């Protein structure tokens, strides 16, 4: 039973219980084929919204709807039957969840890379200049928990550079880490360059060790896509030079091998 069907059943029950209306009046039903649903990592919000608008302009009659969220949560939802046409993840590991479940149509393509930067509050009160500064006594640092991609990347970068660091907190996601930077509760956090760039009141400091922990963003059209051709067309736009331009403007880097 798909989540959508379950939802419809539940809604139907509720409607029957309250007003006796018919269960089946979802407005988008007839337009299913003209709607493209994209599940994408939260860090892609700005760039994919822009790419989606361009896609709609190129494909009259098609509406692109996005669900942005944590990559792993999205992957779980897809394997549990959520109605998505395209999936773009912030880490290959989350893509593997989907491909292993046989939910992908074809092989995923890496379309962008994201690198870590040191996010500091405006004015840099902790005077953090480089990665080694994070290991100083009295410097409070937030990194993501290792279970989420930004945390795995941060751990890889720290390990590679041999820096001993006891973070103040292991945040559940990039937004949590950024919020603590913005409030001044920590002196620094390791976040993606795109996130630091999008956040207000936060400065991003590049550091060479981040090259050891580059995060690949894969994208794939899904097996259960209602209109496979449209789904493939969206993937093509993202991986095109046009898509790369939008992504680069947001702070992403082009993939290692195109």
């Amino acid at each position, binding site marked *: 039973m798909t989540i959508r069907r379950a939802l419809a059943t539940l809604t139907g029950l509720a409607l029957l219980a309250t007003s006796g209306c018919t269960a089946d009046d979802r407005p988008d039903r007839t337009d299913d084929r003209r709607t493209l649903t994209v599940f994408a990592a939260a860090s892609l919000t700005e760039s994919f919204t822009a790419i989606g608008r361009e896609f709609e302009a190129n494909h009259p009659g098609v509406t692109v709807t996005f669900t942005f969220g*944590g990559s792993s949560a999205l992957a779980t939802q897809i394997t549990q039957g959520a109605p998505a046409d395209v999936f773009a993840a912030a880490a290959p590991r989350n893509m593997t969840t989907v491909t292993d479940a046989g939910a992908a149509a074809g092989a995923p393509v890496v379309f962008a890379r994201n690198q870590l930067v040191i996010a500091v509050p405006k004015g840099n009160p902790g005077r953090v200049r480089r990665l080694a500064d994070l290991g100083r006594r009295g410097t409070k640092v937030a990194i993501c*928990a290792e279970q989420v991609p930004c945390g795995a990347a941060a751990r890889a970068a720290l390990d590679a550079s041999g820096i001993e660091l006891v973070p*103040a*907190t292991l945040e*559940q996601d990039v937004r949590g880490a950024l919020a603590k930077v913005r409030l001044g509760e920590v002196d620094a956090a390791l976040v993606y360059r795109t996130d630091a760039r999008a956040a207000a009141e936060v400065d991003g400091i590049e550091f060479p060790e981040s090259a050891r922990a580059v995060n690949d963003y894969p994208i794939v059209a899904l097996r259960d896509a209602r209109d496979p051709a449209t789904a493939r067309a969206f993937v093509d736009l993202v991986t095109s030079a046009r898509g790369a331009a939008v992504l680069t403007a947001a702070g992403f880097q082009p993939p290692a091998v195109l």
Partner: protein
Amino acid sequence: MTALRHLSTGRGPGRRVPAALLLPAALGLLLLVLPLVGLLLRTPWASLPERLTAPGVLTALRLSVQCATLATLLCLALGVPLAWLLARVEFPGRRVVRALVTVPLVLPPVVGGLALLLVFGRRGLLGGWLDDTLGVTLPFTTTGVVLAEAFVAMPFLVIAVEGALRAADIRYEEAAATLGAGRWTTFTHVTLPLVAPGVAAGAVLCWARALGEFGATITFAGNYPGRTQTMPLAVYLALETDLDAAIVLSLILLVVSVAILAGLRDRWLGSP
């Protein structure tokens, strides 16, 4: 007395349960229990022993129980007097204060945690002062976890105790006064024992809420194993990578809390 006897015999016309109540009651119970069944069905029983002994699990569990208990004690120490004030003292703006007490119930816990940061954080209203003069830092500390949990759970205690105080017969306190008891003695020797069941019920709710607290905790106290990572935080992070681990952690939390609550209920409320 006759009414009591009638109730306890369980016979007579008042005992039949109307279907109009029974059906929704059964559906309500199903709604509460079915997700539990879902958890149990998905539990990876084979790998359960090794997952239970995995490093970090016991640490998070111990921290959870400790913090929830400390938060409940804090709520008792502050919430019972607050409830007394609300129930027994007429003062201007009492309605507003009563509404304010319930704010943590309606506030998304994450916002509650953020609000706590704005007050007790490094750059917060009081946090800087606390840090400079007392050397007390709350964010990212176990104390911070306790504070966040107390913030979220306090309304449960205050509401329960205030209700019990309002229902209690104030004339017992008058009787105590005529026997020479001052207000404080009356409160400790008469009022508190009279509302003890209400206090116990409130404390149990408070503890349960604190135990399950997630949003305010991770926002205010962050997440670090052994220091601020309670079970709900561990569950949430486990969900990112390992569904089975998350289910096992939830199950532990569930079993421990149900066991403790059932045990306390017998002892405190003296009811089965």
